[in-house]
């Protein structure tokens, strides 16, 4: 199994008047060919920023990638000249965004937005050919009457259809890696399932690697091969989907799972994690989760790097607390 993307100690900081925001503070991850990696965490945990960093889409200033490497086919995305990175964007690595209502330009026909990436990369593709491929892409993502619909404006599509258009737009150049930034958050539950199924099918068909950014563990469950749980700019736990769901070992992951509403539990059984994530410009010493952690210990607040505890060949957590065999969480 070869790695398509290998991110090593990526750090993206924002230098603002209000101080230094360590939005992404040394994350490492590996995406394998044809597999799905999920980045899970609350809003502000650095999920999106880390992915935008890879694509060179961080607003600079105030943002700056201060360290790390990200190899995609032996090329370090973080140190690539702008022009080369732009040539990769959309062509080899594509991204879909959270809100399909705002990620399509309301003034442009869908056909223009679908083809403009393609035409930016390939001068040789004629307008007609680009249009043909756009129609094909729309049909591929299950939009009926693609031939007619392609000349419509975004506001003439429903939310789910717009997200399909976004997916068609991202996949039109047949990229190898798709970054999906909360692709279903803004959609109805029924539509969510459709979109996730669509992504899964397309993945199989095109041997696509996917990085799925989400705060919804329910979405992750059916999709992800590997899960990275992020908190305050760090990956606090990683493991396979089974590892995370059946034997979570970081108190934050346990809290996240506990705060998922379950049909089989009684009313009022919703456990929220107390408190709020720390202000990213004033991160506490030691573990950023310490103030909210039910298992907090004295050394958690020490100014030392946190220990990486390995639970199996696939699972590890960034925490002092060690879960005992069979301990009830």
């Amino acid at each position, binding site marked *: 199994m070869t790695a398509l993307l290998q991110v090593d100690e990526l750090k993206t900081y924002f230098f603002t008047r209000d101080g230094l925001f360590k939005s992404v503070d040394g994350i490492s991850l590996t995406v394998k060919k044809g597999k799905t990696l999920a980045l899970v965490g609350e809003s502000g945990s650095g999920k999106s920023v880390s992915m935008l960093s890879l694509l060179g889409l961080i607003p600079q200033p105030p943002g700056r990638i201060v360290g790390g490497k990200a190899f995609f086919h032996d090329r370090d995305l973080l140190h690539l000249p702008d022009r080369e990175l732009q040539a990769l964007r959309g062509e080899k690595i594509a991204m879909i*965004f959270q809100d399909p209502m705002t990620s399509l*330009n309301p*003034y*442009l026909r869908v056909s223009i937005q679908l083809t403009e990436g393609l035409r930016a990369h390939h001068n040789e593709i004629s307008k007609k050919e680009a249009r043909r491929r756009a129609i094909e892409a729309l049909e591929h993502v299950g939009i009926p009457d693609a031939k007619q619909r392609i*000349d419509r404006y975004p506001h003439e599509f429903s939310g789910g259809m717009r997200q399909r258009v976004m997916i068609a737009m991202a996949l039109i150049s047949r990229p190898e890696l798709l*970054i999906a930034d909360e692709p279903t958050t803004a959609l109805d539950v029924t539509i969510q399932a459709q979109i996730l199924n669509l992504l899964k099918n397309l993945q199989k068909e095109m041997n696509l690697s996917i990085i799925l950014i989400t705060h919804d563990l329910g979405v992750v469950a059916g999709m992800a091969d590997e899960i990275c749980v992020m908190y305050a700019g760090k990956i606090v736990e990683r493991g396979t989907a089974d590892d995370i769901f059946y034997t979570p070992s970081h108190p934050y992951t346990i809290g996240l799972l506990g705060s998922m509403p379950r049909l089989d539990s009684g009313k009022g059984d919703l456990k929220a994690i107390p408190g709020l994530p720390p202000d990213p410009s004033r991160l506490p010493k030691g573990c950023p989760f310490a103030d909210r952690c039910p298992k907090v210990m004295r050394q958690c607040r020490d100014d030392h790097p946190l220990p990486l505890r390995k639970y199996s060949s696939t699972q590890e957590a960034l925490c002092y607390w060690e879960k005992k065999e069979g301990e009830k969480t």
Partner: protein
Amino acid sequence: MIMKAAVVEAEKGRSLWQDAFQRLLKNKMAVIGFCYLIVQASLAVLAPWIASFPFEETDLLLGAVAPDSVHYFGTDALGRDMFTRVLHGARISLMVGILATAVSLAIGVLYGSISGYMGGRVDNIMMRLLEILYALPFTFFVIILMVLFGRNIYLLFIALGAIQWLTMARIVRGQVVSLKKMEYVDAARSMGVGHVRIIASHLIPNVLGTVIVYVTLTVPNVILEEAFLSFLGLGVQEPMASWGTLISDGVGAMQTYPWMLIIPCASLMLTLLALNFLGDGLRDALDPQASKD
């Protein structure tokens, strides 16, 4: 027939522009203003064929006569037909209004969108430059231009446009600064679309709504500026006339031949009023908040 048109429309998709146009049609004052402007503009364009007298032809024996069935708007002290002169004045005034606005539009949109999109230091420098230009006394600037290059109508267009683009650039910049944070810009960037294309095809169409409204306010502004400059004797030269020079002449004869003042003033006022109604209507029609009704 109507059914067929509706079907075609449904197939092509209705843009926000078309929606806005539909809403504009419902605004009576705006439609009246728009029609008035069309009539006024075609009269101006067709002036040499409509007017029964050449605009520079004097008839000193006749002198100034009040409006009658031969001279609809009367004549001035030199016996020139006022109807002809007002129509020819409209040519100059409307041309100044449109061309100077076009100049300001071209420079302003380009400058503003680049400044807003680039942000950071570039934006800062470009905006400070703008403020310096703002601080220059405009009348003084035009007088210097006129003295240096002689009285030339095209120079007048450029000079007026060069003043108006400052505000246009500011408006566009403000819009672009907020628009560039929209997700569709990120989405386009993530597709590998370049900066130039993002400005040209994503940002500028989105600011056009605001810009069009501002244009309808700029045109009367420019016409007034031209009238003001002509009034001071810096605009068009005799025997050519603009509304400004006609008003200026009329002021001198106000007590004896009031029609010389009233008629050009009324033409100017009606045109400005029509432009303002149209501008108001456009603003309401293009307001995204209203798009739900």
